[in-house]
């Protein structure tokens, strides 16, 4: 039985100034709350209300506090912070000059995780990679990755290199979300069946809050590899505009003589996007198909049970 009082957490941690707030703002389409008089850290507690993938709540913490206030607060609240954690995402600034310190703070976080939430998944993001010269990026990332893997034992961590100025951030978060879904292979198979039945060119499944692609099926090669991120950015931008009018985005249909695309709410935590290259098929038909598929997918989730499925809680 899901315990709604104890929401599962996703911890986004890292040194102050490593880019967490910007990252959260970009991924979750929040306006950046800039507190001009930062007390040295982002104190981000349960008031955040950023939820995704069901009941996961995103918490931001600055690790490696600069002033004693933060240190004390952190250490006294440590158990509270690290309890009930589903995912730990730790952000490293690739330009940081204090590598030793960074690793030290990372290790202390890992210790706390080991004590309080040993089943948590760990992801490390080596961020701000755009500041590194292109020819050196792979090398530097590989070095860091080895160090981090070594340091993280016995826990397993997955490493990504990211930058907000290219597609790597979106891809990293999509990978993270993909790994958080337990029955993703089955989902993909069902998605493929669905797509083939309705003769769609491409079908995408997005996470509802972030429009990160959870899974997709395409029947032929598409030209633009960046299309997922572009769609996500376009829709998030549109959602921001909608929110200004106190309206919420629900569905969208885009059509011209070459194609028809439908974006609609799917299950309680996902959106689906269906692209049909045969524009002669009337919209109503596709929409009915989507509606029926919705019922099927929801049933699918219920079969798996709430413990395993992150799609519905």
């Amino acid at each position, binding site marked *: 039985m899901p315990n709604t009082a104890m929401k599962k957490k996703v911890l986004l941690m890292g040194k102050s100034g490593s880019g967490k707030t*910007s990252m959260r*703002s*970009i991924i979750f389409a929040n306006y*950046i709350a800039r507190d001009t008089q930062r007390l040295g850290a982002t104190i981000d507690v349960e008031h955040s209300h950023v939820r995704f993938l069901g009941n996961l709540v995103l918490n931001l913490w600055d690790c490696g506090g600069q002033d004693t206030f933060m240190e004390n607060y952190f250490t006294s609240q440590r158990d509270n912070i690290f309890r009930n954690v589903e995912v730990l995402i730790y952000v490293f600034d690739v330009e940081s000059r204090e590598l030793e310190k960074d690793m030290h703070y990372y290790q202390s976080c890992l210790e706390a995780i080991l004590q309080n939430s040993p089943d948590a998944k760990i992801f490390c993001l080596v961020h701000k990679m755009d500041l590194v010269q292109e020819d050196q990026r792979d090398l530097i990332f590989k070095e860091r990755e080895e160090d981090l893997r070594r340091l993280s034992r016995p826990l397993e961590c997955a490493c990504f290199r990211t930058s907000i*100025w290219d597609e790597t951030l979106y891809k990293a978060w999509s990978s993270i979300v993909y790994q958080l879904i337990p029955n993703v292979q089955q989902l993909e198979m069902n998605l493929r069946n669905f797509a083939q039945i309705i003769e769609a060119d491409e079908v995408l499944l997005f996470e509802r809050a972030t429009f990160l692609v959870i899974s997709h099926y395409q029947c032929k090669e598409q030209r633009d590899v*960046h299309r997922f991120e*572009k769609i996500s*950015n376009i829709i998030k931008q549109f959602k*921001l*505009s909608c929110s200004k009018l106190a309206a919420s985005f629900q569905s969208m249909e885009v059509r011209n003589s070459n194609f028809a695309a439908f974006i609609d709410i799917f299950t309680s935590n996902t959106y689906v996007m269906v692209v049909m290259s045969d524009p002669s098929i009337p919209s109503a038909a596709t929409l009915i198909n989507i509606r029926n598929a919705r019922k099927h997918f929801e049933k699918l989730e219920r079969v798996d049970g709430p413990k395993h499925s992150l799609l519905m809680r």
Partner: protein
Amino acid sequence: MANTDSDSTHLLISEVDLEINPGPMNIQFDSSDLRSKRPFYIEPTNIVTVNDVIQRVSDHASAMNKRIHYYNRLTTPADKALIAPDHVVPAPEEYYVYSPLGSAYKLQSYTEGCGKNTSLVTIFMIWNTMMGTSILSIPWGIKQAGLTTGMCVIMVMGLLTLYCCYRVVKSRTMIPLLDTTTWEYPDVCRYYFGAFGQWSSLLFSLVSLIGAMIVYWVLMSNFLFNTGKFIFNFIHHVNDTDTVLSTNNSNPVICPSAGSDDHPDNGSMIFYTNDTGHQQFEKWWNKSRTVPFYLIGLLLPLLNFKSPSFFSKFNILGTLSVLYLIFLVTFKAVRLGFHLEFHWFTPTEFFVPEIRYQFPQLTGVLTLAFFIHNCIITLLKNNRNQENNVRDLCIAYMLVTLTYLYIGILVFASFPSPPLSKDCIEQNFLDNFPSSDTLSFIARIFLLFQMMTVYPLLGYLARVQLLGHVFGDIYPSIFHVLILNLFIVGAGVTMACFYPNIGGIIRYSGAACGLAFVFIYPSLIYIISLHQEERLTWPKLIFHVIIIILGLANLIVQFFM
């Protein structure tokens, strides 16, 4: 959106519109970071047939485009966090603009970054901004100092203020570790001197602004009075038979303050006539008793406008009036001829000695005449080739010095000295021409109109600086603004009635605000930054301390003259 926090620093600027097309000069307060305004691709929309002939944006670039559009929505324009850094945006040569209908063209003349003004435009803008009403007092200043001394003082002051201006421009570059690209000079002062620096620079800036506004009111009353008198005399075909000393030919020059003592003449000329209509006019149209008040009705409403950008369209009038003055002075000089005699130390009946001890009055006037230090950074920011900044600044100062020298020397030299004494040169040299003189009538109308358009701009700047810093809001309520405007206008009216010596007002306010911005702050900041970098040597220290002492002396000695 108007970025009002950055406009608290400008005195009188004509800044080119930041759009690609530099049209009429506007006082626009530019956004603090031009990088947030960079144009970017507009993608072609997918229309019916995708034409392969049209260049398409690369997928990578269009993804970046969407990213940047999206990130821009997440922050306020003032937040620099999500502005694309230079290394991720394509190089300027790769910018394309797409029309929604699909065709694309490359921007030929897109220039990245801050400046689109050529050197010529920058030099002109600096010259235009510096040319103020102090030009009217330069001949009087030369008279007070003596011709030789006057010329030397003008050149020395030009060089000194130029050096201090150079220090102001360089002051930003000596601040380590901080991004100072959007800073104006008061920000630099705040960095070095803390809140004291900020408040004192605000105070001195206000001194210069309000001093300028008082001078403007006095001059406007003067010009309005003379214009009205000219029109009245023209309509009623009255010939002035006034007792004021004047030359008896077709180029009359008058000496309004002859016969009275040092107390300045308020311009009431006595008409020997029995015409009651005339006397009525005399009573209601008086330079010091009534005309200043008539101006209130005209100008006080204009001061209350929220945004004066309408008035900035008339900026070109300033240039035209200076050019017209140059023409007028040349014309008069040709007609009157030169009247010069050189006596070194002793005054004669008609001439003044070459070297006089009252030359500090000229330095006071010149401090304001060469004053541009609180907005020079902004003016130079828009220079296309930033490496030419110093060269352009020197050229501009040279041109300004030449203009002042030209007008000053010509008026002084052509002043008809056998019948009139050189001592007659008025603090506003147009006062030496009778109100019936047509050419100077045109000059007065020109200047009157120009000043009426600049006055609201000065008022706006004063309001923004004072109210912005004290209340945090540049337009807290109509009452605050009204009270401030009444104070400023009241000061102007009072001066126009009781002390209409623009030379005096200019030299006091010039020396006071010049003390801070021209002499003390640039030198002190240079000394401090050198000391922090441990490059301070004794010669530099002594040189700059001398400059500071000169500034102080400049102010103190004004009170003894």
